[in-house]
């Protein structure tokens, strides 16, 4: 009973929040709603016993991602109201609605299967974090490491792209007007 109430409550909240995110004309509202929605999602995670995931959700999303977006917003100076020329909304809503409807029709059906076996069963009495750690560092060590590399890549990408070196494009200027690298300059001087 409690579960149902909680589910419907949070479902309603997340849907509303995300709807605001998608529909609001204000970037700030939008972002705030997104952050809120994500926190509500973490509530689901806790409800579902995925405590670790819930924590990560809050930390990563609300902590890191939202902070990034906030910085971005400030950088882009998009706190003011946005003038968006939106596409014919009938098409957009139609498509979105259709996608939802069709998927729901199919997905609402119960899954009948007797062959599902849990490969990594959730053991009673073991803390979620512990269990997750166990699986993550055995079975999913490789994806984990790859994810680490991915984050590294993302970091490099972010640094490189936002870096000063991008300001003058070597691609667009002829070779003879490219400023010589330091070393060669020195060489030329000596």
């Amino acid at each position, binding site marked *: 009973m409690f579960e149902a109430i909680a589910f419907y409550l949070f479902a309603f909240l997340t849907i509303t929040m995300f709807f605001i995110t998608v529909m609001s004309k204000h970037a700030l509202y939008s972002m705030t709603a997104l952050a809120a929605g994500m926190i509500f999602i973490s509530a689901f995670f806790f409800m579902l016993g995925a405590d670790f995931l819930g924590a990560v959700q809050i930390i990563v999303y609300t902590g890191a991602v939202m902070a990034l977006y906030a910085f971005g917003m400030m950088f882009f100076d998009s706190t003011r109201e946005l003038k968006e020329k939106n596409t014919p909304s009938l098409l957009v809503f139609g498509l979105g609605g259709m996608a939802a409807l069709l998927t729901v029709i199919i997905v609402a059906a119960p*899954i009948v*299967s007797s*062959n*599902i076996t849990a*490969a990594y069963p959730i053991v009673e009495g073991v803390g979620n974090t512990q269990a997750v750690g166990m699986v993550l560092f055995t079975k999913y060590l*490789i994806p984990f490491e790859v994810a680490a*590399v991915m984050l590294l890549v*993302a970091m490099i990408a972010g640094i490189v*792209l936002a870096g000063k070196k991008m300001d003058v494009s070597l691609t667009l200027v002829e070779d003879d007007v490219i400023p010589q690298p330091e070393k060669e300059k020195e060489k030329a001087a000596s």
Partner: protein
Amino acid sequence: MLEPVNISLESLNLSTLTPMLIPIIGALVILCIDLIKGGLNKSLYVMLSLLFLLMDFGSLVDFAQLFSQNGTMMGFFDVMLIDGLAIIGQLIIVVSSMLFIPLSLTSKRFHEYAYPEFYALFLFMIAGFQFMVATDNLILIFVGLELASLALYTLIALHNRNKSFEAAIKYFTMGALAAGFFSFGAMILYALTGSIEINQISAVLAADGYSNIGFVLVAVTFLLASFGFKLSLIPFHAWTPDVYEGSSAALAGYMSIVPKIAAFVVAMRLFEFLVHSNVIWLETILYILVVLTMTLANIWALVQSDVKRMLAYSSISHAGFVMAAILIGTTQANSALFLYWVLFAFSNLGAFAMLWVNRQKVLIAGQDSDHPFEKFAGLIHTMPTAAAIMGLFMLSLAGLPPFGVFWGKMYMIGSAVSGGYTVLALIMALNSAIAAYYYLKLIVFMFMKEPIYQTDKAIHMVNASMPLKTIIGFATVITIFSVFIVSPLMEFITALVYNSGY
């Protein structure tokens, strides 16, 4: 309490990781070198990358031999899966990368090559693709895919001009949507089967007798949409022409080969068992996708005015053509896919490399893109060899025998024929005829028209350098004499594909 896990190191089969680790280590080495001493010449990084890729290649060859003896290898809690597909896929990825990386040794300086990070990201990307093909775990596929994609977005943007940013952003945004599709699809499969490993999934589905067909279809729909994006199937193709146009020709050529083969391998793993399960819907959908992709892309390529954009559409069409293999689903078809792609890789490499050497930095009056057809008008007068080579690649791409792509095409149509897809075979054949038109268009410009741009500035071969010429020469030789490598290649591929059970 959880039991402590005791695992013997041998059972992990750590060696299955070597092919992916090598480029990662390479990337890290490059980053370290840059940290220690900045401002080194790009040739150093190119050669380093090449060296690591060579090692990677060596390890793969080793695996190929191992595979022929031991069959499929699983590693690391069965996350790693080194079967024939993985080996061929990785070989194609690594060899193509080896051929494309020297294209950065241009005589002109371009922005991205000033970054050592470029090479690091390049190697990371390769590792990502390698992970993608060497596993049947959806998580690793996803992570590998994203690793590669993120690196690729950056590489595109690093070209550093408006069009390349535009391209990167478009690619990125659509990629994000596709990532959403992938995760949703994977989620449904997981909901259905409680597993995220493809062989497990197929086993459960088969055991259930596909009773939850609706779920399966939704999952396949989303996954197809996601891989449709990577493989640039219509209508998920929209990024392709813009991204190709926006990025440097070298990278565009690379994109037309490597990400797609990775995606093909995954698609083969994902959809092949479904095709064999006689789900009519999937067959229909794939049929429609394949035909639409081949035909529409060809039709759009007809009307392009920029060679690179034309080649972009043509590569969409080629992808659609090859996608037919997944639809047909026989061993012959799957082998044909790889054979086609290898031969296509060489021709496409050549074509894009030719565009790359033609790339001038400053557009002259009347030129509104990097490689408009007009630029090549009368090339036979000014540079007969270049014109002949470019013409050769065009003919090869058009599927004219005995040049490279023809053999792939023939084998593919042959597999359609023996797979019972007569109409498809005809459509494929006729599409080649449509395609011939736009390839001919370039030939017409090069061989039959007088030069259009009257300029003293060199606009052809400005970017040429020894390594580029070598690469082009190599591609030329392979394209012409492909008939001699078809047989061993086919033997090799078929053995690998067959022994992997596809």
